C-alpha cells in the first residue's frame, strides 16, 4: 500500500549508457564493452506539494535522474512511481501524462524559434484537449502568460524577441499549460543572470504555493537549492551520498563530500578564513573507484572505504552513505 504522503517515488533507479566503440573496432583491438554508470541505484520519495532538490557536480548523474523521472530516458533497472502507479503505465494514458512536465536549463534551445509564443504555450492545451475552440485556448494562453509575469500581447512575438529571463518565463508558462502537478526543473536558472535568477526563483515559489505543485529541482548551486527546497539529496558519481531536510543539511552536513562542497563555495561574507579546497577531481563514471566512490578525495578514508561500498543509512534526520559517519569517525 503506497504511503499517502508519497506523490512521486524513485525505487533503486539505475541507468547505464553503452559508450563502447563500434563492434568491429572493438574486436580489432580486443577491447570489452565500456559501460558508463550514470545513475547507479538511487531511491527517494517526494511528498505532494514539496520540493526535493538534487545537487552535485557535472557528471554526477543528476540530470539523468531528472530525465528518468519524466520518462525521457528509460531505466536500466528500477522504477519510477507517480501517484502510486508505475511511470510507464502513467505515461501511456494522456490524462496521466499531462500531470508531469519539465523545465529545461537553456531557454534559448528549448523554445522553437519559428513558433510564436502563443502557439508554443498553446500546444499542450491543444494536444491534451484541455480547452475547446480557438477563443478558449487563447484565453487560457493569456491567463498563463499573465501568471508568469508576461503580457498577453507577448503571445504574438517570437522567442528571439525576449531576454533569457523572459524566455524562461515562457518555458514555465508552457510547462504549466497542461495543468501539471509534478514539475521537473533541470537547472532552470543556471543560464540566467543573478538578478533575473531571483525573479525566476520567486516566481517558481509563488506558483508552487498557489497551485500546490510538486517539484524535483536539479541544480549545482547550493545557495539556490537552500532557498527552494524542503529536502535535498547530494549526488556523487551516480549515487546519493546524503539525503536530508534542507535546514538539517546546511546546519549539520554529515557526508565528507557535502562538507567539502560547502567549504568550496566562494564566500561573500569575506570572513578572511582560508578555505581548504577539496583536492583531486571527480573520477570517471566508466571506471569508478572500488568501495566508496569518494574515497580518493576523502580525508577520512580508511581500508574499509576503499573496499566496501557504503549504503545510504539513517543517521538521525539524515540519510547518509559513509562508513566514517556510521562508525562515528566523522566528528
Amino acid at each position, binding site marked *: 500500500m503506497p504511503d499517502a504522503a508519497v506523490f512521486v517515488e524513485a525505487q533503486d533507479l539505475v541507468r547505464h549508457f553503452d559508450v563502447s566503440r563500434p563492434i568491429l573496432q572493438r574486436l580489432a583491438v580486443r577491447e570489452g564493452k565500456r559501460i558508463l554508470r550514470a545513475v547507479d541505484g538511487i531511491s527517494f520519495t517526494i511528498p505532494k506539494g514539496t520540493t526535493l532538490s538534487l545537487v552535485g557536480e557535472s557528471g554526477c548523474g543528476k540530470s539523468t535522474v531528472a530525465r528518468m523521472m519524466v520518462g525521457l530516458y528509460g531505466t536500466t533497472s528500477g522504477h519510477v512511481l507517480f501517484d502510486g502507479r508505475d511511470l510507464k503505465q502513467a505515461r501511456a494514458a494522456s490524462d496521466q501524462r499531462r500531470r508531469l512536465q519539465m523545465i529545461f536549463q537553456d531557454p534559448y534551445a528549448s523554445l522553437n524559434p519559428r513558433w510564436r509564443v502563443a502557439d508554443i504555450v498553446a500546444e499542450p492545451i491543444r494536444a491534451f484537449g484541455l480547452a475547446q475552440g480557438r477563443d478558449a485556448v487563447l484565453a487560457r494562453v493569456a491567463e498563463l502568460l499573465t501568471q508568469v509575469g508576461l503580457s498577453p500581447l507577448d503571445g504574438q512575438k517570437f522567442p528571439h524577441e525576449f531576454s533569457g529571463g523572459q524566455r524562461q518565463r515562457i518555458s514555465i508558462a508552457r510547462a504549466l499549460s497542461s495543468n501539471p502537478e509534478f514539475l521537473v526543473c533541470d537547472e532552470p536558472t543556471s543560464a540566467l*543572470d543573478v538578478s533575473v535568477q531571483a525573479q525566476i526563483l520567486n516566481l517558481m515559489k509563488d506558483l508552487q504555493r498557489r497551485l500546490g505543485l510538486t517539484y524535483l529541482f536539479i541544480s*549545482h548551486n547550493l545557495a539556490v537549492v537552500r*532557498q527552494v527546497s524542503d529536502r535535498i539529496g547530494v549526488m556523487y558519481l551516480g549515487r546519493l551520498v546524503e539525503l536530508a531536510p534542507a535546514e538539517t543539511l546546511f546546519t549539520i552536513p554529515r557526508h565528507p563530500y557535502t562538507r567539502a*562542497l560547502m*567549504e568550496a563555495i566562494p564566500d*561573500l561574507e*569575506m570572513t578572511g578564513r582560508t*578555505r581548504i579546497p577539496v583536492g583531486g*577531481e571527480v573520477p570517471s563514471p566508466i571506471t569508478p573507484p572500488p568501495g566508496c566512490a569518494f574515497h580518493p578525495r576523502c580525508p577520512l578514508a580508511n581500508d574499509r572505504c576503499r573496499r566496501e561500498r557504503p549504503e545510504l543509512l539513517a543517521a538521525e534526520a539524515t540519510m547518509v552513505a559513509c562508513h566514517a559517519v556510521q562508525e562515528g569517525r566523522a566528528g
Partner: protein
Amino acid sequence: MPNPILEVRDLRVEFPTRRGTLVALDSVSFAIQPGEVLGVVGESGAGKSMTGAAIIGLLEPPGRIAGGQILLEGRRIDNLRYEQMRRIRGREIGAIFQDPLTTLNPLYTVGDQLAETMLTHLPIRPAEAKRRAIEWLELVGIPAAAQRVDSYPHEFSGGMRQRVVIALALCAEPKLIVADEPTTALDVSIQAQIIALLKRLAREKGTAMMLVTHDMGVIAETADRVAVMYAGRIAEIGPVRDVVKAPRHPYTAGLMASIPPLDRRVERLAQIDGAMPRLSAIPQGCAYHPRCPKVFSRCAVDRPELMDAGTTDAACWLHYKSPAHA
C-alpha cells in the same frame, strides 16, 4: 602612489551597424596597480568582457575603439598596429579565457605550446624552454609534470586544462593578466582550487590582474578592488569590501541583494524588476533609472559620471554634492 600597470581613460567602444552606431562602452576609466587584482562584474551584456577584449586588442570587428586611451606602464597601446600588439600580447599582457578547450591548440602537446610561447617572447633556447615548461606545469599543480608535458589537451580534464591555460598566460611573465570568466566552466570544487592558484601566482609574481566574472563570490574572495558595470559604463568602483558590504549605487545594492545567501533561507529573494536595456535602447539620463527604486527627476535627464560617494566612487546623482558645498 606607484605608477599603475594599466590605465584606461575614457574608453569608448562603438559598433557601427546598418541601423546606426551602437555604443558598447562609454566613459570607462580605471587603473590597476602592480600586484593588484581588479574585479569587473556585471550581468551579461554589461560590457565587462568587451573591456577585457579592448585592452588585449582583440575586439571583434566591426567593434572599434572610438575614443579614450589604454596605457600599459604609461605607454599607449590602443593605437598600435596588429603586429606590434601581437608582440605585447603574451609578453606583457597574458589572457585567460572561459573555455580552456578552445584556448589550447588540440594538435600540439601542452609542452610544445608552453615552449612556443616562451621562445616567441623570451631570449631562451629550446632546451631551456622545455625545462621551464615542466617547471610551470608543476607550479600550477599538475601531477607528474615531467610525463604530462608531452600530453595533448584532450588528455586532461577541464580543471587540469584550465591550469595549463594559466601556465600559458603566465609563462612569459607578463605584467598584466586579463582573465575573462576563468572559473565559470568549472565545477565548484575545482573552481576553488583555480582561484587559490591564480591569487597565489599573482601575488608571488607581482602581476596585476583584471578578473572579469559574473560571480560576486569569486570577486569577494579574489579581488582587491571591484568595478561594477551596467549598460556599458562603470556604475561603481571601489575597494571590494566596501562595494560588497556597503554599496553606494542602487544597482550594486540590488545586485548584491539578489544573490541567494548560502547561510540562511529567505522567504523571498530581493529582485530587480525588468532587465538591462539593449545597446540599441539605452535610456536617456542614467541607464539604470527605469529600474531604480531611488529614482528622482534628474536621473531621467542627465547622465551621472562617477563621483565620490564616500568609501567608493558611484555614478549616481544621490551622491552629487553641488560645487557650492564642496
